[in-house]
């Protein structure tokens, strides 16, 4: 009898554990509370007079820069408390759409069903960063790749380093007869989105389309976040993967030079990124596509990132604070971008972004 009671209790607790796991999964997206406790502010032109609280969430790709910028901003506006929660663009857009946050970070544009309704947001470009194609191949220092070759490597049409397509891109390199190990992001990510968007745009051979997660071939390997991919590349000779510049540099990886639209092989760098931004066409809503941009110095795999703001803030304090922070971010805040491997906006785009912030209405 004793044992039966015990085992039944045990079974019940198994169910309990599973339920708890499900509850966590189910609530993960909207666990954040709305920002509360705004103290009345006498927000003037002087940043140090600003006070209050702002909540934001979204893209993890620019998180390193935003955290750095928030640290610096706290020095000039010590009473304005801003938190940016790196949840991923999808969750960021959803939380912003349901009014949980005051602004959101996003690497991708807002599509129907993402959360924010049409007309309830404005794009403010902040910084941009290159996505590197990092590799680990002993004896090969300056790998050069064209978009089609990158596409074929990542969809496993090319499985050996001494394949003819790679040889054509690297006439002078001594390529070994080694298997290629492909590393990709295991988590849904804006980095994957921008990388596959680039391949969709620039490589006719690319067949896997674009998204936060794509259907990678089964004989590739997934790593968690940029650091996880970097780690796989470091571990295996013959590996290749896509990693943002900040993490690739921190992990000591080497990157391939990618052939841009003008036919030049360009290594990922902040200068190449700013050149790509200058070569991109900016639309009226300030969304722009710096992937595969024109210009001899442009690095082709350059990812934009935006902050989404409301066109009208009904809470006057919040509205003023959002505008003040973003203005600072686009002016004084830009100088901190390079220290964390992000590229500043070129002057023309910066002017347009500042004009966008002026469009934000503050009521009350």
């Amino acid at each position, binding site marked *: 009898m004793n044992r039966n009671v015990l085992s039944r*209790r045990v*079974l019940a607790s*198994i169910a309990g*554990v*599973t339920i708890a796991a499900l509850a966590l999964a189910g609530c993960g997206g909207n666990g954040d509370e709305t920002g509360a406790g705004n103290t009345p502010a006498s927000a003037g032109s002087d940043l140090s007079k600003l006070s209050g609280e702002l909540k934001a969430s979204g893209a993890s790709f620019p998180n390193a820069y935003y955290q750095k910028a928030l640290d610096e901003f706290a020095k000039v506006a010590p009473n304005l408390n801003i938190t940016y929660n790196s949840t991923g663009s*999808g969750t960021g857009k959803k939380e912003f759409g349901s009014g949980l946050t005051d602004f959101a970070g996003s690497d991708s544009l807002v599509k129907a069903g993402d959360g924010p309704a049409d007309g309830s947001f404005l794009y403010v470009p902040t910084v941009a960063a290159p996505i590197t194609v990092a590799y680990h191949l002993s004896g090969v220092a300056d790998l050069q790749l064209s978009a089609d070759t990158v596409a074929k490597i990542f969809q496993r049409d090319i499985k050996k380093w001494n394949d003819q397509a790679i040889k054509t891109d690297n006439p002078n390199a001594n390529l070994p007869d080694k298997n290629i190990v492909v590393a990709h992001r295991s988590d849904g990510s804006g980095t994957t989105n921008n990388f596959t968007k680039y391949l969709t745009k620039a490589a006719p051979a690319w067949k896997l389309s674009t*998204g936060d*997660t794509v259907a990678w071939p089964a004989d590739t390997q997934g790593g968690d976040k940029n650091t996880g991919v970097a780690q796989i590349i470091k571990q295996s000779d013959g590996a290749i993967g896509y990693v943002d510049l900040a993490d690739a540099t921190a992990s000591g990886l080497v990157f391939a030079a990618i052939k841009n639209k003008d036919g030049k092989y360009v290594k990922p760098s902040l200068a190449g990124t700013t050149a790509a931004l200058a070569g991109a066409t900016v639309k009226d809503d300030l969304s722009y596509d710096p992937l595969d941009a024109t210009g001899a110095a442009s690095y082709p795999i350059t990812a934009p990132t935006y902050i989404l703001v409301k066109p009208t803030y009904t809470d006057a304090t919040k509205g003023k604070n959002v505008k003040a922070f973003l203005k600072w971010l686009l002016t004084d805040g830009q100088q901190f971008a390079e220290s964390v491997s992000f590229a500043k906006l070129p002057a023309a785009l910066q002017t347009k972004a500042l004009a966008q912030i002026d469009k934000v209405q503050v009521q009350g």
Partner: protein
Amino acid sequence: MTQITDRPPAQPLTARGRGAASDRAFSAVSLAAGALVLAILVLILVTTLREAWPALKYAGLGFVTSPSWVPLEVDGAGPVYGALSFVYGTTVVSIIALIFAVPISIGIALFLTELAPTRLRSTVVTVIDLLASIPSVVFGLWGIIVVGPALVKVYNGLHGALGDIPVLGSLFGEPVSSGRGFMTAGMIVAIMIIPIITSITREVFATVPDADKQAAYALGATQWEMIRGAVFPHSFGGMVGAVMLGLGRAMGETIAVALTIGAATQITPNLFAAGNTLASVIALNFGDPGVPPGRSALIALGVLLFAITVVINYAAAVVVRRADVRMKGASA
């Protein structure tokens, strides 16, 4: 015959009538606590089903029969949600974990209850409890930084030795270079569930009546024969319960598996290949779930995992009931 007449009057435990009231209060509180669990379960089921409905309606029966999961639009075709590869991954990782964890856990429990000197016993128990308190993300990081790369050499050796034998060859196929795959994830999970299975089987073994054990010895049994004849039949139900609790943890384990399994959507007999499980897909993709109804599809995976767990628990309860009748006679 003397009678004690000067006995002091009995002191009631509580004031007259208070006992009945506190009894009623106690039963009300316990009923509420019991009902709360049920209510939470029903609410979770209702909410997750409602959230999962758009994806289930979109994918139809393909959600459980299709092995391909493509949460984006390819050449104008909409997203495809088929969870079969993840169900397969969850199953494989759980089976590997149980194959490693069950014999080790039962061995530890037997050692602790039958063989270990008393002083050593408490030390071993403390160490095993410590193992249970390590956060799963630590296990996951240890898995990808230390265990995975170290095991690749073993995998390569096994693949080299067994790769040409028909059935074993497909099980021990070409390993991935970083070691992230079913086998590594299964072994990490095995280490995580050993403390659970050990502590419960230990408790169960401790309930075996000493008289049964002494009777076995009196009949001339060796120690192993005593364990087989007296301890195991008496403890079978509890052992199955312990294994089921371990299985529940293995199936639901998320972060350690997400880090070590390599995130490939495939059904392959190769245990050294990368795969994915229901729980790890949810964890990895919830932040950026792809085009709608991507988020809903991830919640639907949670519902599926819940359903599988319920079925397995029910099956385990049936196994325990039948086995108890067979092993201990109808009196049990």
